[in-house]
């Protein structure tokens, strides 16, 4: 993109401002967090010479800042004569991401730095990918009508877990890979203040040579510390999931009672945060991946309760029910 052209266009825009509100709008458009110049900075790696391009961008940013500052002092003050204004005066409307998206992006940020790709899969899923390929036995209670919403029983259903994306990923891609994926999932549950039949998972899968539990624990620890700060206390315990072996349950020390036991953690002092483990050799085998050559870990976390705790949302229905709104001006 031609930076000189951008500077000329910016100058014209700034000069055209008649009021301080208009000028503020232009400032956000050019210098705001999601503004043009920040967007150019985010694409710096694509430039032929990123170092030189970065210097030019910094110069452009400074020039735009000076232009705005000068314009601000030169804007005509409102005098006593009649003034009819077209635009109202308010801080410009800034859009907001849904809290689930914000949390997903925060998690994506962690995995982006670890060199992960991202993935997706269908919500209308087959029994094969939702259960069979994840080593869920035919008699597992999750397969029953009470727990699964079927489109066409028993073959087609609404996915009950984000792991179905894992099953697709394993069968579609060749290792090694590192992938994270948020997902919307469905269970046949009555909707009330604390349960919903639609909720959200965040999962990750790594398949490479010599993957260990140490890699898994370190990755989850990094994730929790990013989300909850460096002082968060985590423990890992043994837990059963059909798709992993060994299985792992990561817990976080209760933020409310610091491990003493309270109503939030039901007296345990710890809060269950999801499930993880080394991918079961049967799961790899079913996907055509040789478990003697490759090993992987997988983890999955329920997103909704994290989001509720983080944003102080008390009713899970609010997340998808239309009752969430955003203050317009960051007051």
């Amino acid at each position, binding site marked *: 993109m031609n930076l000189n052209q951008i500077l000329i266009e910016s100058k014209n825009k700034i000069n055209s401002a008649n009021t301080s509100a208009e000028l503020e709008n232009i400032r956000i458009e050019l210098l705001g967090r999601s503004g043009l110049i920040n967007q150019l900075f985010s694409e710096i790696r694509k430039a032929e010479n990123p170092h030189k391009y970065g210097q030019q961008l910094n110069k452009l940013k400074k020039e735009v800042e000076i232009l705005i500052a000068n314009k601000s002092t030169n804007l005509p003050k409102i005098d006593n004569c009649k003034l009819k204004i077209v635009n109202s005066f308010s801080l410009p409307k800034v859009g907001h991401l849904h809290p689930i998206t914000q949390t997903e992006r925060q998690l994506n940020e962690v995995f982006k730095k*670890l060199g992960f790709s*991202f993935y997706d899969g269908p919500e209308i899923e087959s029994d094969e990918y939702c259960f069979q390929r994840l080593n869920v036995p035919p008699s597992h209670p999750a397969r029953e009508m009470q727990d699964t919403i079927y*489109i066409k029983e028993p073959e087609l259903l609404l996915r009950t877990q984000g792991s179905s994306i894992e099953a697709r990923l394993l069968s579609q891609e060749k290792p090694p890979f590192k992938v994270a994926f948020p997902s919307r999932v469905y269970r046949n549950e009555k909707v009330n203040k604390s349960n919903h039949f639609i909720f959200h998972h965040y999962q990750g899968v790594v398949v490479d040579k010599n993957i*260990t539990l140490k890699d898994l624990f*370190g990755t989850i*620890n990094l994730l929790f510390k990013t989300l909850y700060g460096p002082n968060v206390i*985590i423990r890992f315990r043994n837990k059963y999931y059909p798709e992993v072996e060994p299985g792992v349950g990561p817990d976080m020390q209760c933020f409310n009672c610091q491990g003493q036991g309270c109503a939030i953690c039901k007296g345990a002092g710890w809060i269950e945060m999801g499930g993880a483990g080394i991918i079961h050799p049967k799961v790899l085998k079913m996907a055509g991946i040789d478990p003697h050559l490759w090993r992987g870990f997988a983890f999955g976390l329920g997103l909704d309760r994290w989001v509720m705790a983080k944003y102080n949302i008390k009713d899970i229905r609010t997340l998808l029910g239309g009752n969430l709104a955003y203050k317009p001006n960051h007051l």
Partner: protein
Amino acid sequence: MKIIYSEIKKWLPDLKDDAKSVRDNLTQIGHFVSGFEEIDSEIVLDLEIRSNRADCLSYYGIARELATFYNLDLQIPEIKSFQFSESSIPITINSPDVYRIQATKISNLKNSPSPSWLIKFLKLHDINSINTLVDLTNYVMLQWGIPCHAFDLKKSSELIWENNQNYSEFTSLDGSKIKLSPKNLLITDSQKVLSLSFIGSENSSIDLNTTDSILEMAIYNPSRVRSDSRSLKTITEASIRLDKELDTQTIPLAFSHLLSLLITHCGAIISSQLLDIYPKVPSKITIEFDPSSPASYAGINIPTDFSLDVLKHLGCSIIKNLKSSLLISPPSLRKDLNLSEDLIEEVIRFYGYYKIPIDTPVDSQTLPDITPPILYLIENLKDQLLALGYDEIRSWPLVKTPLDKNAIFTQNSINSDYPVLRQSLIQSLKTQLDQYRRFKLPAPQFFEIGKIYFQKNGQYLEQNALAIYHYDSQKLESDLNLVAPVKGRYPKGRGVDSNFTEIILDDLPKPKKYLPTFSDSKAIELTSQIITLDANLNLDSPRDPLDLIKEYSTKINPKILWSIEIIDVYKNRYTFRVSYYNCDDKTAKKIHLSTFNLL
């Protein structure tokens, strides 16, 4: 599964750790203790037992786990020696769902109300006391994890195990009537139903007058029990155990314990042969195991001696030494041990997950990017729409009504008012708009990016779509012209109104890569209407309106201030428009009048 700390010590007399340490260690090795309380001077631990560990639905199983963890010897309860007679028992097995059954006849019973220790034991497990004989069958079930049943011989002269063909109804011990289905596993006397596999009936119940009884302990096809229990909507302590894989080889020990207790506490005399029907003898499993493999899985050093000690303590036997590995046979009790990875997990969980360092995440080396480009497009569009002031919403993908015959219906959603997968995001956004209108949210503009679903040529398909709403339809159009690559590709809403539009994203050109940065902003849970009030402020001299907004916004409690703006300026008169939330009309008006000196 609840366990009493003092009771587990009977199985492990050398256990020195206190109950809290036992709780923490059980949780570490995979039996999450969700409850810990003192009741009647006893400490009761409530364990969440995973579905593949039916052996741990008993004191026997949990004691074996702790014996391995603490390297202690297990003390099996005292079992008397007794002799069976030659007399036969009137039992017929006509069902393939019976995996093993042991049964015998006992006579000369002196049944009575249960002793206090037994009543207390059962009460701590949330089981009501009936009488000594019945209570002892429950006691043995909790100790060994295998349900057993006593039938009054006066009420039923023979017992037949069969899959239902003839019976329509069953009355359980508490008098509730259960409608039976074909194939339900029943115990009958050819005239009436005496019991289901997991719950008894009045027709054969034991009371204080019972003197002769047939005792049986059996393990069935778990799928049959699960199916019966679910379809009949009846879950019992017995069904919770019988619907999982139990160990048929534990039956002789557990059944002998029951007989010992009945001889001691009810004066029972064994008056028949020991019937042992065992059509499903499990085959022996062997697993090739490399003792160094647990270390390779954990990523830390775990001595091979430790691996072998753990397996030995668990009851595994070494069948053969191979070149670099061993051929191991797990104990019959452990139905979950089938692969070398299962044994690896055993070693690591007893070694301690807490010994594995947690400060080294997976190597951050970047591997080839396999992200589908549609995901980059979605993130890019979200950021562009944010910059234009749109809020993102997420709505229910299930809606009340289909748009046309291509809609996809769910078969069994418990929320039957919403049986259809949406064919358009606008269907969901309309509900959102209704909510915003209900709360009188001023000037809404929002979007959703999500899936829509439909049938085509017998296939069930889903597409990624973007739907947008703006209260000003002209602004919507001008905004869309600013969004690449939507520009020029926006159809008007599907007959809803011109304030909505929807675009299929799968058809749009995708960016090569787009990684958004994280930013955080507040979400408000709307619980009351937004109240909007105006005020005219007459000043002596002109002021910068934005300065005025900032000044007056600080005068109002941020917990109730939704928005504030100046909508008109005439000479030195400034017209404010303020929206309040989290308060009622009267409070909002009072605060408004006071803030702008209008009282």
